């Protein structure tokens, strides 16, 4: 044990962030190491690995329940993850809602993880895990609530096959965080007051509407499956119709399902929607930040 500690000091490992340190970006935690990214949806699981140079390496998709897929892919996944560390995106059994006047501050992210009741007050539900994304200029926030049982069962499955969870997040919410940062934080002064953001990630969809500079409405649905273009349009259309004509609509998706993306964009292009999707965007978002 002492020898390990001396070794970790001499190799500077003792000064590097822990592999599951939530306050450090994934890419920085795994600099020079291989890591595995997994996206767990209702009826399929996809994965992608980073090599030691921080570039995308192997990838795969498998239909079925995660609990059935994981033991079959265990050996393959263990080889992709150095030290067994992986980042899991749970894309099922969650809900994103709009909230107002939520607590903000540097330590809120940690507090939300360790003592969510202190942040959410009466909105706190014992069986849920939470994450938040704030509007930069107003008091509105997006609140993600994911089933704790889903998180725990996913962690247990991974633990049973010898993998360790360095991060558990929601792919759809991560894409929305990314889009909010790109649209509302980076272009803060030039953001149109009326706009809509449509995010899709492997069968889950969320639509956020901003009117008069305020986030007014958010609708979310998870676990729809890959071919739910019609269902998605039924969610998107009424919200977009509330916006004044010509208001910008942005679309962001995981960057893997080209069929769903092209079909939905065929409809969204009619209202001049801008596609912010890039190749492997989901993996970039959860694997670099």
């Amino acid at each position, binding site marked *: 044990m002492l020898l390990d500690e001396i070794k970790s*000091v*001499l*190799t*500077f490992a*003792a*000064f*590097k*962030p*822990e592999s*599951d340190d*939530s*306050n*450090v*970006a*994934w890419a920085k935690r795994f600099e020079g190491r291989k890591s595995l990214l997994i996206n767990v949806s209702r009826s399929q699981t996809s994965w992608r690995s980073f090599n030691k140079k921080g570039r995308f390496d192997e990838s795969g998709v498998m239909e079925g329940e995660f609990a059935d897929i994981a033991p079959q892919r265990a050996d393959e996944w263990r080889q992709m993850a150095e030290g067994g560390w992986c980042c*899991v995106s749970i894309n099922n059994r969650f809900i994103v809602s709009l909230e107002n006047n939520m607590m903000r501050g540097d330590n809120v*992210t940690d507090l939300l*993880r*360790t003592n969510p009741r202190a942040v959410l007050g009466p909105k706190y539900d014992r069986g849920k*895990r*939470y*994450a*938040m*994304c704030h509007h930069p200029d107003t008091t509105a926030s997006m609140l*993600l609530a*994911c089933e704790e049982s889903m*998180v*725990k069962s996913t*962690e247990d499955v991974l633990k049973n096959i010898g993998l360790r*969870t*360095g*991060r*558990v*997040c*929601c792919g759809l*919410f*991560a894409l929305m*965080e*990314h889009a909010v*940062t*790109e649209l509302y*934080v*980076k272009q803060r002064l030039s953001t149109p007051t009326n706009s809509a953001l449509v995010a899709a990630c492997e069968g889950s969809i969320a639509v956020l509407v901003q009117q008069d500079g305020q986030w007014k409405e958010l609708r979310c649905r998870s676990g729809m499956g890959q071919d739910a273009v019609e269902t998605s349009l039924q969610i998107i259309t009424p919200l977009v119709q509330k916006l004044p004509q010509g208001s910008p609509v942005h679309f962001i998706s995981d960057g893997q399902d080209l069929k769903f993306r092209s079909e939905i964009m065929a409809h969204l292009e009619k209202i001049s929607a801008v596609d912010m999707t890039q190749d492997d965007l989901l993996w*970039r*978002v*959860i694997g*670099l*930040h």
Partner: protein
Amino acid sequence: MSDYICHDFKTPRNDTSRRLPDTFKAVPLFFFLSLVGSAYFMTMDWMAYKHAQKTKIEAEARKTELDEAAKKLTDEKAVLDTETAKAESLAKWMEGARNVQPIATAIARAMPPEVRLSDLNLERSEQVPSNLSLSLRINGGSAAEVSLIETGLSRLQYRSFSPQQNKNEEVIEYRSTLVRQEQ
């Protein structure tokens, strides 16, 4: 890509330890610097040791060479010393023979031109170095020449002691001991 950090709601671990502060990076840095420094000094010392060994071998070779040269010079000096000793002996002999030279001159001058002096020996007495033993042979001479010799020697303050004179046909042998007369 912007620099925000993605959300995370995993089950927190209880066994996490605090990371060491960045200032503690000085410890491994100092360690590695010490290693590099030690390696540098060891290499330099090793090279200096090798250089010293080479210099020592060269110095020993030079010493051997110089020893041989010194021995040669010593031998030459011994030869020269021998020669010097011989020369000194000769010089001493020359110096010692200086007082005999006027005697030889006086004897030669005493001889008339028609008489030949065939043999002349002047020897110092080992017991009394101031005395000289004189022996000579005169061809074609007579007792008159002997008296001329004695006269010449008496001018040089030498007196003949127990002179012996033999005449064998034309050759007169004369022997005498010359004693220096003090003034």
